[in-house]
């Protein structure tokens, strides 16, 4: 299983407009092709998870995630906000790179946790923020995932 296969170009946004955590979450959800009602429910669930503790894991990276009945398969999105937003991250630094993961409550192939784990692993690479900063288009993001072999 490779992370690369879960991302589509349409679900990668290198220039997020949001200026707050909530706006960023909404923008990320909008990258997933789901209807408006489902977007609203995903937003609520993601907020509930954030309220338990921020998914900002430090070094500018956040991994908002949830399971919800409104999606029928695992979906992921990536967003970048170069200037950063306050995400209440562990290291109290602004978050600039966002990996969104949503999955149905039950998946046949059970890839939710492995995907979450791989993104966490990718985030630990020492040069990852510099490399994410350099990206100029979604294809380069996909190539980076491939290069890192995650």
């Amino acid at each position: 299983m490779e992370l690369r296969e879960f991302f589509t170009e349409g679900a990668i946004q290198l220039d997020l407009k949001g200026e707050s955590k909530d706006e960023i979450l909404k923008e990320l959800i909008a990258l997933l092709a789901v209807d408006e009602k489902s977007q609203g429910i995903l937003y609520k669930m993601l907020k509930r998870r954030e309220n338990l503790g921020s998914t900002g894991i430090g070094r500018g990276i956040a991994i908002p995630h949830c399971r919800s009945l409104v999606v029928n398969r695992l979906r992921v999105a990536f967003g970048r906000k170069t200037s950063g937003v306050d995400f209440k991250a562990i290291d109290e630094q602004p978050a600039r790179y966002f990996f969104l993961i949503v999955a149905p409550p039950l998946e046949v192939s059970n890839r939710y946790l492995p995907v979450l784990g791989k993104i966490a692993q990718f985030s630990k690479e020492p040069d990852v923020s510099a490399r994410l900063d350099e990206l100029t288009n979604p294809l380069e993001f996909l190539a980076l995932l491939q290069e890192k072999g995650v």
Partner: protein
Amino acid sequence: MHPELEALLEIQDLKTQRRELGETPSRDMQEAVFGLSTEEALSILDAKIAEMEEALAPDVRGRYRRIANKQPRVVVPVIRGTCYGCFVQIPTALASDADRNEEVRSCQSCGRFLYLID
């Protein structure tokens, strides 16, 4: 979407989150990657679930409790006409309804609440 169905969906999603946080691989990851305090998170989720259950309309709450006493999944998706609780085919008229999810419906076979998705 019917507001009671939306509330049911949210409760079910919270229960999923709660169940998963109680399981080893997920709990370990939440603690290691996100520094989550799982015990605290579980009690917050329990309180929220209880609060939302209480807020359901009395008739829906009665049906909810009857199913919840027997099984963890009270709301299940209908995908391509099949109830994903009991895997029985749902009557076509119901599964293809234009006003899908505008009513609170139950599976005639297993009794679980139904949420129609594509």
